[in-house]
């Protein structure tokens, strides 16, 4: 058992990436079908898979769906912070928060994309409805996004089927919790409001995200030898 795992260790030989690339294309559609709720079922044009369908490897369809769920949330957070930093609306400690946390979320996106390889969902299109352009709405939205991310990872961790994916999820989960405590502290709110944090199911998180209206379209996908899924 490795004594100190980082994500780099976890994918030391590119093993995870290679494993995920051997998953059938239909596995990606499993997540996207559920994620259709995010845009009320509207699927926009997006990435077309170039990969050939391949036999499933050690990574499971469930893990691919979970990783794509996480990737979608990380795409959202990363874009939120990127836009907020660029807007010039933030100053002082809040600007510092957005810069550091944005860097983390962008790294999370990159790591999950690498893990998933050609099974990775493409980035959705977003409209943050002004919450990246004004300090008050940014504060509120960042706090909700981070708390939701914590609950989302907690909800999925017990469902992950392979150790490498679980270890990566755990390493990200607690960083999202640090983010949540940090923005709460900056907002003058209790950083750790409960002794035990609650988990949310994938459907509950997707429903909550849909309610924000931040995702305006999800990528379509097609693949060799598998059902096309466009809207």
């Amino acid at each position: 058992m490795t004594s100190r795992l980082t994500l780099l260790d976890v994918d030391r030989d590119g093993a995870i990436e290679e494993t995920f690339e051997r998953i059938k294309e239909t596995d990606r559609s499993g997540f996207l079908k559920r994620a259709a709720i995010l845009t009320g079922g509207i699927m926009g044009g997006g990435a077309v898979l170039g990969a050939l369908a391949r036999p499933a490897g050690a990574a499971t369809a469930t893990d691919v769906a979970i990783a794509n769920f996480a990737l979608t949330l990380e795409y959202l957070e990363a874009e939120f912070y990127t836009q907020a930093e660029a807007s010039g609306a933030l100053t002082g400690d809040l600007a510092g928060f957005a810069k550091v946390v944005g860097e983390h979320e962008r790294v999370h996106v990159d790591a999950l994309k690498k893990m998933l390889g050609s099974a990775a969902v493409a980035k959705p299109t977003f409209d943050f409805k002004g919450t990246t352009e004004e300090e008050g709405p940014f504060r509120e939205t960042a706090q909700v996004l981070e708390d939701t991310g914590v609950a989302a990872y907690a909800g999925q961790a017990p469902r992950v089927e392979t150790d490498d994916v679980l270890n990566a999820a755990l390493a990200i989960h607690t960083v999202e919790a640090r983010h949540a405590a940090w923005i709460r502290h900056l907002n003058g709110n209790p950083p750790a409001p409960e002794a035990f944090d609650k988990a949310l199911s994938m459907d509950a998180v997707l429903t909550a995200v849909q309610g924000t209206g931040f995702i305006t379209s999800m990528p379509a996908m097609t693949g060799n030898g598998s059902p096309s899924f466009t809207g």
Partner: protein
Amino acid sequence: MPEQHHLTLEVVERVDPADLVDERSRDTRAAFLKKAVGAGGVIAVSGVVIGGLPALVTAAPGAAQDAEILNFALLLEYLEAEFYTQAESGGALDGEALEFAKTVGAHERAHVEFLMKALGDKANPKPTFDFKGTTEDQEMFIQTAIVLEDTGVAAYNGQGARLTKEVLASAASVVSVEARHAAWIRDIAGEPPAPKAFDDLKSKEEIETAVGDTGFITS
């Protein structure tokens, strides 16, 4: 008033952490030491080795391994809870550091209760601690709290893949709170609340060595 159950690890998944049962019997210290020695364990008074049970690193998750891991977590929670309890009443803290000790101490005490309840008669008893003055000086308190909370995060994360799924769900609800604690006290100290994009996962052995090196556990 909830009916009192004797909870074993097998039913831990039905335990709501918010339901705290009152009293439970626990081993005397002598019985605990006897068990540890009988299992080939070694406990050094200087705190070099804690537990010393053979690491079940290659075993598949199961109830026995869950119990081993939960007792490992319980040791860390006993330590944190006592640290904050002593710091809160020590008189050295004020302002937000005191507020932190009160709030976080309550959380750690709740974690102890939850783990003891989950373990039932398998729970190890509380060790004795000597925090070597770190609860009696505000700056030392803050720096020690940072280390304890960061260590707790790495410890729980390192065990996640070794737990059964039911217990992992409970562990996940605790570890994120430890991470919030870590970020909060770091911010109080003027340190980066989230220093890295990925948190560490450390082995039980590495954590036990680090904790032993503090000398905080005296028996």
